[in-house]
């Protein structure tokens, strides 16, 4: 097992977790406004998946995308400043928490209408195929997307045109406050993908290594055979849908059960079990992540707000 790889993944997952905690704190202080959807509990999905792809592969995500952004860019400052609505944010303060973009790193959003970005991701994959470029597009979305028309149209087109698209459903069991069994007629979202048809696989989304291997396989296949692939990552969000949601629709026991398989804890156990690092060394990595987030918060606080005279910029090219 590659020690540097495991420690790198651990460090990234800590960064995602600490970033979200800091964002929630800043929200409670009124420094971050609007909607804030936290990723805590799902870190293994974003970090595992994005560690498995090339830098030139594209990523298209949702409004719960801080971790995808961080895993791709490592840019905690740009993300935090965006949440703070500052000019130095990765979207210049025009986007906010739900609309992180970084063209240079091929991070294509940050979209906040459920399912609307799935056809867009298919379009990015279409462009790669059209230009005969080797790049694959990763599209992240939640389980609640599985009933949206745009989701199905995106999958239908990706399948019939054989697009190099890897669809990653983060099944965290809840579409906002509604448990999946009340709104989805099948137990596994991936069942739906098979009908298009496309290859589909269920992955333990709390296991970063399993996630990484599954995405590596899916991307490999998408790249070589120009075929879409569907992955359903079973996971759980520890917090509510957004910071405004106390998540009273779930029992303490249920949350407790999932927190026992905290993806960061699972990876820490594995690292220690393999003798790659001890608790103190892991603690140090976490401290590093905390310091990076603290730096990002300070950067965001000190950054200027967008200049008022720029309000009408970028409406048109």
């Amino acid at each position: 097992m590659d020690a540097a790889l495991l420690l790198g993944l651990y460090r990234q997952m800590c960064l995602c977790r600490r970033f979200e905690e800091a964002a929630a704190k800043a929200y409670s202080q009124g420094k971050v406004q609007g909607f804030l959807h936290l990723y805590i509990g799902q870190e293994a999905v974003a970090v595992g998946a994005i560690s498995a792809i090339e830098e030139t592969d594209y990523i298209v995500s949702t409004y719960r995308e801080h971790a995808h952004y961080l895993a791709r860019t490592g840019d905690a400052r740009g993300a935090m400043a965006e949440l703070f609505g500052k000019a130095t944010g990765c979207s210049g303060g025009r986007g906010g928490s739900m609309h992180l973009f970084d063209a240079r790193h091929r991070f294509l959003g940050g979209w906040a209408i459920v399912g609307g970005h799935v056809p867009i991701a298919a379009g990015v994959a279409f462009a790669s195929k059209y230009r005969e470029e080797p790049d694959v597009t990763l599209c992240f979305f939640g389980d609640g997307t599985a009933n949206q028309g745009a989701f199905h149209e995106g999958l239908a087109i990706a399948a019939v045109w054989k697009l190099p698209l890897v669809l990653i459903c983060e099944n965290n069991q809840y579409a906002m406050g509604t448990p999946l069994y009340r709104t989805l007629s099948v137990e596994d979202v991936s069942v739906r993908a098979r009908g298009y048809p496309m290859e589909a696989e269920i992955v333990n989304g709390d296991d970063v290594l399993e996630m990484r291997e599954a995405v590596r396989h899916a991307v490999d296949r998408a790249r070589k055979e120009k075929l879409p692939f569907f992955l359903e990552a079973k996971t759980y969000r520890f917090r509510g849908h957004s910071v405004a949601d106390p998540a009273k629709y779930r029992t303490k026991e249920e949350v407790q059960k999932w927190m026992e398989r905290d993806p960061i804890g699972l990876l820490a156990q594995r690292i220690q079990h393999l003798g790659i690092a001890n608790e103190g060394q892991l603690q140090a990595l976490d401290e590093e992540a905390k310091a990076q987030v603290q730096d990002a918060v300070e950067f965001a606080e000190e950054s200027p707000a967008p200049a008022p005279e720029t309000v009408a910029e970028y409406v048109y090219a």
Partner: protein
Amino acid sequence: MPEPRVITFREALREAMVEEMERDPSIFLMGEEVGHYNGAYKVSEGMLDRFGERRVIDTPIAETGFAGVGIGAAMVGLRPIIEFMTWNFSLVAYDQLVNNAAKLRYMSNGQFTLPIVFRGPEGAAHALGAQHSQALESIYAHIPGLKVVVPSIPADAKGLLKAAIRDNNPVIFMESETMYSLKGEVPAGEHLIPLGVADLKRPGRDVTLVTWGKITHTALKAAEALAADGIEAEVLDLRTIRPLDEAAILESIRRTHRCLVVQEGWPFAGIAAEIITLVAHQAFDSLDAPPDRVTCLDVPMPYARNLESLVVPTPERVVGAVRRLLGRDDAPPQPVIAVRGR
């Protein structure tokens, strides 16, 4: 100076697409029936043979899907032309156009441009019923981030479509089933008309008819009838709704002192309301009469031909409205069914 030839509106559109696709390999045409069927209205006839399946792409009946595919492809540098079989069908893709295409550049702080054209016919044709007869430019022109183009003659169709394809913004390009066979002189080869520039289709001194798209021909017929009676109506064809050529509108009104907007769409919150606001605010002192509008009646389109012909603006209704504006004693009253928004 290129040689003018007489071709149809449909051929003019095709010529624009073919010339641009020959020039730039990143342009492709995508939509329902555009390829093997040669286009539901034959606009893309022969293009599959010319460019092949890679660049003339038949889609499933999934407007949200293929509109979104176009947006994604444009985000990473391609220049899609997305055909809606009619703009009525674009409504199932409205989320893609409004929430995604119109917003991307702004909410990414200018990191992305979106060079994409959505085109197809809109408005009433003949007895197509309520779901296939809508003039929808107002609901697109409402949205910052979109441009909206509605040509009225073949030469403009070609020049504006070429400009729309070269534009780096999402452009809504609206044609009409009933105009596809309309013939007119069209310059061969390079012929570009900048977006946002109105065109005076008929000069006049007594009243300005502000119009666009196929209703321009209704306004021209009305102007012809009025001329027989000694009333000289100016017909200003906006050609582009967004950006709006405000200067051309105001310049004309300041000369004629009277403004009648003639539009196919419904009255309530329509484009005429926007233009009349502009005129009232910027040319108030030039006006000899309150600005007015002739629009589609404020009802869904009925199927029966006698009812349909009541709903769509006609030259007779335009003539009546002009006579009322000029205070002619013999002016007919407003139509029985209120055209005011309710």
